[in-house]
């Protein structure tokens, strides 16, 4: 029989802890596929965050770190400075990257740190049970915004890609989405470009991936994909925000 699809060899057989319907699995697979396609398995070093992807170090067959909450870009900086030829990446959620780790991601980008950040934006804290994130949309209900996020009280969601794109040290910044096949294919291309930016030593790269959290959004996986498309993309437009030639 002809093999038409295989899971990447960079994925081991460890049972994943992600909820059914969550897009983390897709994001993990894309990262693994690109690293394999680039032939960089032996040089890849990943940094897992605190949040839903805290166990990412278990699933990817490359050297891994597990970092403190928000500090993955600083950890990656240390790792990259010691071994500049390694392909060093962080994999962070929105609570980790855009809230507690805002300083670390901004300064890693400002330094032009030659690392790649994979940024999962699902507009909520998943691991801790669905609290309001810095990316939670105005009006969105969470366990700490039970009446919907009010801008008078909690301000406005942060557009991280646009913000980091203003920094001189950022070499490649793109926002993609995981809500359907065409967009997943675009996301894969974006991840490839980001890693290639690092291999070419151009500076900091980040791909923001709009993602779903059916469990904490209180929606079915299918409704979640639809909700992402209708509500997140208008506020978080897709596209390339920075590309240094």
């Amino acid at each position, binding site marked *: 029989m002809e093999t038409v699809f295989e899971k990447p060899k960079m994925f081991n057989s460890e049972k994943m802890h992600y909820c059914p319907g969550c897009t983390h699995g897709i994001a993990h697979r894309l990262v693994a596929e690109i690293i394999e396609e680039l032939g960089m*398995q*032996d*040089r*890849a*070093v990943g*940094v897992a965050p605190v949040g839903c992807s*805290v*166990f990412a*170090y278990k699933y990817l*067959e*490359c*050297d*891994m*770190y*597990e*970092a*403190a909450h928000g*500090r993955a870009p*600083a*950890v*990656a*900086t*240390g*790792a*990259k*400075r*010691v*071994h500049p*030829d*390694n392909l060093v990446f962080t994999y962070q959620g929105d609570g980790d990257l855009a809230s507690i780790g805002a*300083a*670390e991601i*901004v*300064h890693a980008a400002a330094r032009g740190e030659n690392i790649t950040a994979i940024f999962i934006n699902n507009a909520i804290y998943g691991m801790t049970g669905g609290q309001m994130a810095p990316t939670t949309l105005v009006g969105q209900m969470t366990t700490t915004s039970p009446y919907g996020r009010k801008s008078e009280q909690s301000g406005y969601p942060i557009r991280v890609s646009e913000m980091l794109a203003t920094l001189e040290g950022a070499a490649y910044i793109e926002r993609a989405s995981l809500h359907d096949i065409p967009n997943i294919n675009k996301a894969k291309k974006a991840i490839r470009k980001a890693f290639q930016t690092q291999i070419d030593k151009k500076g900091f790269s980040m791909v923001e991936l709009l993602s779903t959290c059916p469990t904490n959004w209180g929606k079915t996986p299918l409704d979640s994909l639809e909700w992402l498309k209708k509500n997140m993309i208008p506020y978080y437009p897709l596209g390339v925000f920075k590309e240094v030639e």
Partner: protein
Amino acid sequence: MTKVLMKGNEAIAEAAIKAGCRYFFGYPITPQNQIPEYMSKRMPEVDGTFLQAESEVAAINMVYGASGAGARVMTSSSSPGISLKQEGISYIACAKLPCVIVNIVRSGPGLGGILPSQADYFQAVKGGGHGDYRLIVYAPASVQEAADLVMESFEASDFYRVPAMILGDGMIGQMMEPVEFKAPKKRDLPKKDWAATGWDDKSRKKAVINSLFIEAEKMQDVCIELDKTYQKIKENETLFEEYMMDDAEVCIVAYGTTSRIAKNAIVTARENGIKTGLIRPITLWPFPSDIIKKAASKVDAFLTVEMSMGQMVEDVKLAVNGEKPVSFFGTTGGVIPTPQNIFDELKKIKEGI
């Protein structure tokens, strides 16, 4: 090698370079600024990396990254900055990453002041960060000893995979003294086959630099393993100095800057018929409890002198275990005790004996 006149902070930085440290991540704070400044000039000369981080928090996590990648790495700061590093220090301790952290202590709590203090004793030896962990804590009393202990601390930290701390103060950091850089005793250091260097050598396991253990039994096993190492460190790495203890009736216990002032007071005391000696802990953890316990059977009384409201005195009392009276004299906030202050305390003790 001939002696050179150097500031303590600069001697600490140069000693790290001499010890093979090629990565330094820091953030400005007084009174330790000469360490990052010196490193920023010196690291490029030895193909090393100096990076000024965006915060102490980031700096200690860069240390986590670089140590996890197998490098000899150092960071330095001062009290409030060291407080910010505590989260990272706890992660480093749990992930068994060697590194050297320098604290040139200023007074506190809070933003405090920049003058010499020893009020970070608790923070340095009783945890500081969260969880069941220890640091090897060295307390130099001179610029020479600061250089020696920095070089030693890298060896010990690599040997045990336990982070080490150099606990100085503004006096040690800012004072100029002659210093000679002498290589410490070489240890048979274990290979860093646990480091995340890129997994091209498949003869080793995949490297995972981690401090997350979600199963209770597994986390307990990690703590038991760490504790086994700590017990070995207690057996092998405790350092102290005894000064005029042979015939002493009163034993002063003091470390770092304060121990030098105590030595002056001891000379005056002896001229006035008070036979006084000194036990100076050089490692604050492991603490030289045994030698203090032994002294308790010979001397009549103890006097602990610190630049704090009384922190190390608790460990002295634990070691003496009620066998003899233990008094305390302290100045804090950046106030430095004088030999006369200490002599006055000794007179009071002598009258009470």
